[in-house]
C-alpha cells in the first residue's frame, strides 16, 4: 500500500498556502452586523480574556469557516486524483515488453475498468492500458524502457524516468500484423541488465566496465510464441502479464493459393485451408471474391482444433486478385481474410547454347513445355557475338541453358549449365567459385532432394550415367542430386538469380565429331518432367502463374525487367481504397519492398502493364491460436502468467468529491440555521 504523490514538495507548499489565504479572506471579507449594546464594558472584558488566543478561538469555534476549509481541502485533494499503488515494483528499472504481433489484435479481452467485453478493445489496447497504469504509478526515481516486439523488436523508448515521454512513446505504439519473435526484444532488454565482459572470460585482469543493473522485465503478451531457450535472463526478473482469455473463438484461413490449370490456362483453381483454432465450434461462410466481385461461396462448420480444405474453380484469362473471406464474428479478424494473385499466363523465353542436343530439344518441345516456353537454340559461337552480350546483360531471356560451354561473363538471368561450370567473377573468393570435385568417372545416383520443386515427380534411380564429375558449389548452394562421387546437381543463388549445374552431359562428342549419349535419361519418363520443372521453377513459368505469398512485414524482393525505370506498387487490402506507392528499381531491376505490412494483394505496375504480383497473408497458426499461454518459457525458466488487472490504481477522487458535496451541504445548513 503506497500513496501516489502527484505533487512535488514545493507544490504541496503552495497548496498549503490556500487555506491560509482563505482564512485571511475570511477576516477581510467579514461583514459584521452592527448591534447596539448598553455597554461594551462586559464584552470588552470578555474579549480581553480571549485576547491571548483570540484568533485560534475564533477559528476553533467558527464551524462555517472550518467547513469551508474542509470543503476546499477535499476538493483540492480530489483534483489531485489521489490513489493507492496496488503493488510496488521491486526494482528501480523496468523493461516493458509489449507484444504487438497479429494475435494481439484479438478482441477477446475484458474492457478493463469499464466492465464486460468491450467490442472496441483489443488485447493490445488492454496491454497498453495496463502499461499506462504502470507508468502512472512510477515514482520519480524509477525509470523504464518500452520495447514492442512482433517478428522484430522495436525500442520505442529507451530508459527514462520521464513519465510523459514514456506515455508519448506508448501512444505511438501500434499493433502489427506480424508474427511473433520475442528473442530480439529479450536481447535488447538483456543488453542493459547483463553487461558483457570487455575481453575473454578467464582473464583475471579484466573487469566489467559497467555494473549489472537488475531490472524488472514485464512482458505483456498472450504468450503466442515459441519457447525461448537460447537466452539467459541473468539479472532480468521476468513477469509475464497474460493478456486475453483462454476461451477464444477464432476461425482462421491458414493457407490460400491459386494456380492456373496448365492444361486449360483459362481455368483458375483456388485452394484454401480453414482451421478452427479457438475453443468453440464455429460455423461460417467462406466467400471468394475476384477483383471485388463475388465469385463463389462455401459453408464451413468446424469443431475446435479441426481443419478443412476448400477448393474453388473459376474461369479467368486475365491477371486476377482473389480474396477469400470468412463471414464470421470471431475474436481475431485479421486471419479471416486471405489473398492470392495470379498473373496472366505467359511464356518464358529460353536461350539454349549447345553444339547440338536432341534430347534437350525434345524435352523443350513436349506439348506441355511448348505451351509455356519459347526456346531458341544457338551454337557456342553465338557467345562471342555482340548480340549475345547485349542479350545477356539486358536479361531478355528468362533462362539460358549452357550445354557443355560457358560464357565469359555470367548473364543477368537464371542459368542451367550441363556438363560445364559457371564462370566466376575476377575478384571472387575461393568459396564463391564453382569447381569440379572429382575426375570423370562412372556415376551412381544415391540421393535426391524430393522436397525441392525442381525435383518434383522425378524418379531417377534407374538412370545410367557413363561419365560424370562431382560439383563443388559456392556458398549457399543446394544439393539436389547426390551421387557416389559427390553432388551431381547443384543449385546456387547469384545476385538474385539462380545457377543450376548438372555434373554430367547428356550428349558427348568424340574427338572425331561423332555424338553419343552419356546417359539414358532422355529415354526415361523423368526427362520431360525434369525439363518442365526447369521451365516452371528456374525459368519462372510457375511464378508467372501463381503469385507468391509472404507473411506481413517480410521484405519482398521483386525482379523487374531492366528496361523499367519506374514502377508503382498498388496495395489492395480488401478495403475499397487501393493505396499506391512509387518504386524505384535498382540497375539490375531488383526492388526490395519493405512496406508490405498488411495482408492484401500487391501489384507492381509499370504504366498499365502488370509487372509483378504477390500476396501478403498472415498464415500463421501460432498467431491464430488465441488461447493464452498459462506460462511462457524463457531460457529454461517457466514464467507463470499473472493477471493483468492486479496492479491497478485505486482511485479515491470520486469518494472525495461526494464527501465535499456533503460538507458543502452541511455548511449551507449550518449557515441557514444560524442566519434564519
Amino acid at each position: 500500500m503506497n500513496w501516489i504523490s502527484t505533487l512535488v514538495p514545493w507544490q504541496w507548499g503552495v497548496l498549503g498556502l490556500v487555506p491560509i489565504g482563505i482564512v485571511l479572506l475570511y477576516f477581510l471579507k467579514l461583514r459584521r452586523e452592527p448591534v447596539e449594546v448598553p455597554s461594551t464594558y462586559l464584552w470588552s472584558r470578555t474579549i480581553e480574556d480571549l485576547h491571548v488566543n483570540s484568533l485560534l478561538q475564533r477559528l476553533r469555534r467558527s464551524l462555517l469557516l472550518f467547513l469551508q476549509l474542509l470543503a476546499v481541502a477535499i476538493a483540492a485533494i480530489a483534483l489531485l486524483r489521489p490513489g493507492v499503488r496496488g503493488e510496488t515494483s521491486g526494482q528501480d528499472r523496468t523493461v516493458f515488453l509489449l507484444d504487438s504481433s497479429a494475435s494481439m489484435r484479438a478482441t477477446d479481452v475484458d474492457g478493463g475498468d469499464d466492465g464486460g467485453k468491450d467490442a472496441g478493445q483489443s488485447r493490445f489496447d488492454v496491454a497498453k492500458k495496463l502499461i499506462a497504469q504502470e507508468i502512472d504509478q512510477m515514482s520519480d526515481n524509477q525509470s523504464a524502457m518500452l520495447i514492442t516486439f512482433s517478428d522484430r523488436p522495436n525500442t520505442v523508448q529507451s530508459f527514462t524516468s520521464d513519465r510523459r515521454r514514456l506515455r508519448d512513446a506508448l501512444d505511438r505504439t501500434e499493433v502489427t500484423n506480424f508474427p511473433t519473435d520475442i528473442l530480439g526484444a529479450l536481447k535488447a532488454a538483456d543488453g542493459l541488465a547483463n553487461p558483457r565482459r570487455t575481453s575473454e572470460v578467464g582473464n583475471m585482469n579484466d573487469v566489467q566496465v559497467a555494473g549489472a543493473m537488475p531490472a524488472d522485465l514485464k512482458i505483456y503478451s498472450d504468450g503466442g510464441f515459441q519457447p525461448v531457450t537460447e537466452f539467459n535472463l541473468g539479472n532480468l526478473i521476468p513477469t509475464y502479464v497474460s493478456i486475453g482469455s483462454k476461451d477464444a473463438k477464432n476461425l482462421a484461413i491458414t493457407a490460400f493459393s491459386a494456380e492456373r490449370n496448365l492444361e486449360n490456362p483459362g481455368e483458375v483453381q483456388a485452394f484454401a485451408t480453414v482451421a478452427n483454432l479457438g475453443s468453440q465450434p464455429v460455423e461460417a461462410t467462406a466467400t471468394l471474391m475476384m477483383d471485388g466481385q463475388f465469385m463463389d461461396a462455401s459453408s464451413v462448420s468446424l469443431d475446435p482444433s479441426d481443419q478443412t480444405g476448400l477448393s474453388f474453380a473459376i474461369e479467368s484469362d486475365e491477371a486476377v486478385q482473389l480474396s477469400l473471406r470468412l463471414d464470421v464474428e470471431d475474436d481475431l479478424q485479421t486471419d479471416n481474410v486471405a489473398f492470392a494473385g495470379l498473373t496472366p499466363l505467359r511464356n518464358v523465353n529460353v536461350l539454349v547454347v549447345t553444339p547440338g542436343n536432341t534430347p534437350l530439344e525434345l524435352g523443350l518441345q513436349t506439348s506441355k513445355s511448348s505451351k509455356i516456353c519459347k526456346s531458341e537454340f544457338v551454337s557456342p559461337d553465338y557467345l562471342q557475338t555482340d548480340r549475345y552480350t547485349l542479350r545477356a546483360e539486358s536479361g531478355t531471356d528468362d533462362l539460358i541453358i549452357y550445354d557443355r560451354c560457358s560464357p565469359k561473363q555470367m548473364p543477368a538471368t537464371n542459368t542451367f549449365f550441363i556438363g560445364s561450370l559457371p564462370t566466376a567473377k575476377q575478384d571472387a573468393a575461393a568459396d564463391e567459385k564453382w569447381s569440379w570435385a572429382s575426375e570423370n568417372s562412372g556415376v551412381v545416383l544415391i540421393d535426391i532432394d524430393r522436397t525441392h520443386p525442381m525435383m518434383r515427380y522425378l524418379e531417377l534411380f534407374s538412370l545410367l550415367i557413363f561419365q560424370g564429375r562431382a560439383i563443388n558449389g559456392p556458398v549457399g548452394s543446394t544439393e539436389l542430386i547426390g551421387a557416389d562421387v559427390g553432388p551431381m546437381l547443384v543449385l546456387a543463388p547469384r545476385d538474385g538469380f539462380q545457377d543450376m549445374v548438372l555434373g554430367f552431359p547428356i550428349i558427348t562428342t568424340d574427338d572425331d565429331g561423332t555424338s553419343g549419349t552419356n546417359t539414358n535419361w532422355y529415354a526415361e519418363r523423368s526427362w520431360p518432367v525434369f525439363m518442365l520443372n526447369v521451365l516452371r521453377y528456374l525459368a519462372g513459368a510457375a511464378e508467372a502463374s501463381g503469385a507468391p505469398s509472404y507473411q506481413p512485414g517480410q521484405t519482398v524482393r521483386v525482379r523487374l525487367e531492366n528496361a523499367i525505370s519506374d514502377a508503382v506498387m498498388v496495395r489492395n487490402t480488401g478495403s475499397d481504397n487501393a493505396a499506391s506507392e512509387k518504386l524505384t528499381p535498382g540497375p539490375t531491376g531488383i526492388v526490395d519492398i519493405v512496406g508490405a505490412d498488411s495482408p492484401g494483394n500487391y501489384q507492381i505496375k509499370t504504366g498499365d502493364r502488370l509487372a509483378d504480383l504477390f500476396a501478403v497473408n498472415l498464415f500463421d497458426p501460432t498467431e491464430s491460436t488465441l488461447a493464452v499461454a498459462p506460462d511462457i518459457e524463457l531460457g529454461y525458466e517457466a514464467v507463470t502468467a499473472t493477471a493483468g488487472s492486479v496492479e491497478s490504481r485505486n482511485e479515491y477522487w470520486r469518494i472525495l468529491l461526494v464527501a465535499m458535496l456533503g460538507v458543502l451541504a452541511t455548511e449551507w445548513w449550518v449557515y441557514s440555521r444560524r442566519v434564519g
Partner: protein
Amino acid sequence: MPKTEKQTLLSPELLARLERLELVSRKIFRGRMKGERRSKRKGQSVEFADFRNYVAGDDLRLIDWNLYARLDQLFLKLFLEEEDLHFFALIDASESMNFGDPTKLLVAKQLAAALGYIGMCRADRVSVTALGPHGRRAPVLRGRSSLWKMLDYLDSVTPGDDSNNVSLHDGVKDFSLRTAGTGVAVLISDLMDKSGYESALRMLIGRRMDVFVMHVLSPEEIDPPLRGDRKLIDIEDGDEAEITINAFVLEKYRDTVRQFIGTAKQFCSRRSIVYIPVRTDTPVETIVTKYLRERGVVR
C-alpha cells in the same frame, strides 16, 4: 407629560401596599425636623430615655418632681427625640440604562418612586435624584402630597441627554457636594461604568450614609441573544467592539457577567452595603414587597 405615563410608574394598588411599608435604616441618624423616628437626640417624645442631674439653666419643665420628693435631689427626666429620616434615591440615568424592555431606567424610576413614596408616607425627608446635572433640579420632598412632585421630576429624567452621561463617580461626587447630612442612600444603577463603580460607593460610605445598591440588569444583558459576526456599538460612548459571537464566547461572557455581579456583591458586603440585584423582567411590586423586605430595606 401625560398622566397615564406617570401612573405607570406606580399603580394605585402598589401605592396602597406601599403605604403600609416603612423604610429601615440600620443606623440612627440625626434628623433635621421632628419626625416619626427615634433619634439619638433626647427630645420630647413619650419614650423615656434616661435621667441626669440638673444643672442651672435646664428647662424646669423636665425636672422629675416625684424623684425630687423621694430623694430630695433634682433630676431631669430625658425622653428620646423622634426625628425624620433622610432618604436619598440616586438614579443612574446614563444612556446605558436606556436598554431592555422595559428599560432599566424605567425600572429604576419605579423603584425610586416606590421607595420615595414609602418614605413620604412616613414623613421622611425624601430626595429622589438622578445623577448628573439633572440631580440639581431634584426637589426635596416630605409628605404624601409630594408624590406628584416626585413623579414630575422623575418624568423629566430622560436618557439620551448628553448631560446625563456622567460617570458614576462624577455623579455621586456631585451629589455628595450638594447634599449635607447623612441618611439612607439607595443607588439604582447597572454599575456599568468603564471607570468603575467602586469609587462612587466609597464616596457614599465616606458620607456615613446607610448605602443600598440596587443593581439593575436586563435579561438581554445577562444572557444576550446574539450570534455570529457582530459589531457591538456602545450606546453610551459609541465605542465599537468587533466580535465573533459563538457558543464559546457567549459562555465566556456569561462567566464575565457572573464574575461582575459577584465582585460587586463582595465589594458591597465588605463595606456593609446592601447589594440587591434586580432583573428588569421582575415586576416592581415583587421587588419592593418581597426582595426589599427580605433584605431589610423596608418593613
